[in-house]
């Protein structure tokens, strides 16, 4: 219970950064923190107490494994997160080339 709540606090730190900050790089950092928190929440839900990793061994009966399904979902989500972060950074670099700033409140005032 307290573990879930700490994970949600991490989510809220990222959300605060996303809503409050005006720098584009800071906004990308906020998105990254939110993404980490969501991935962590999936894994916390699937953890089993005193469980073992879902990998079988030769001549050894492994009982009490943790949930492999959420691990498979998060495995794809991590790589997608990297690709979308790279796309966001490319857009931010282009905005910097055009307007000369990362500040989102100044972007609409300048004309390219």
């Amino acid at each position, binding site marked *: 219970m307290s573990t879930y709540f700490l994970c949600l606090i991490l989510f809220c730190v990222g959300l605060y950064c996303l809503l409050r900050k005006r720098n584009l790089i800071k906004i990308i950092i906020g998105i990254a923190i939110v993404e980490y928190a969501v991935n962590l929440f999936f894994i916390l839900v699937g953890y089993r107490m005193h469980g073992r*990793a879902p*990998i079988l061994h030769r001549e050894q009966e492994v009982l009490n494994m943790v949930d492999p399904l959420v691990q498979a979902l998060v*495995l794809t989500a991590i*790589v997608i997160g990297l*690709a979308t972060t*790279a796309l966001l950074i490319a857009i931010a*670099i282009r905005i910097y080339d055009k307007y000369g700033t990362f500040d989102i409140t100044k972007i609409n005032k300048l004309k390219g």
Partner: protein
Amino acid sequence: MSKMKQDQAGMTLIVKTITRLTVGLILLYGIYIVLHGHLTPGGGFPGGVIIALSFIHLMLAFGKETALKKLDQIRASLFESAGAIMFLSIASLGFVGGYFFLNFIGKGRPFNLFSAGTIPLCNIAICLKVGAGLFLIFVTLVVLSKMEER
């Protein structure tokens, strides 16, 4: 590009020497992670990223010409398309036995390298796709925006 200018590209001599020693080991570790993805932790996703990181390591240490000589953009995009086509054709070959994504090859003896049917082949396809895609993203972000500054 002259010889002297090529020596100046990249970082100092210490970094270059260490890179020359370690980059092959990093590539080998990535290939190991991909090929043993169905037996030990790992698989196509981390293996592909490690392989992409070995080329990025080369590019950061020696400058972009040396790395692009080993794997240029056109070949990287070709590898990425090859990975996608390989994954889709493995999936479509499942129609031989019945449905999409059928594991149609025999399972083999468990806990061996050649086992688990189509899963190692799919791992190789995913590795090609992820590695080439991420390397392409890095090259685009570094090279194209650096050319503009000149």
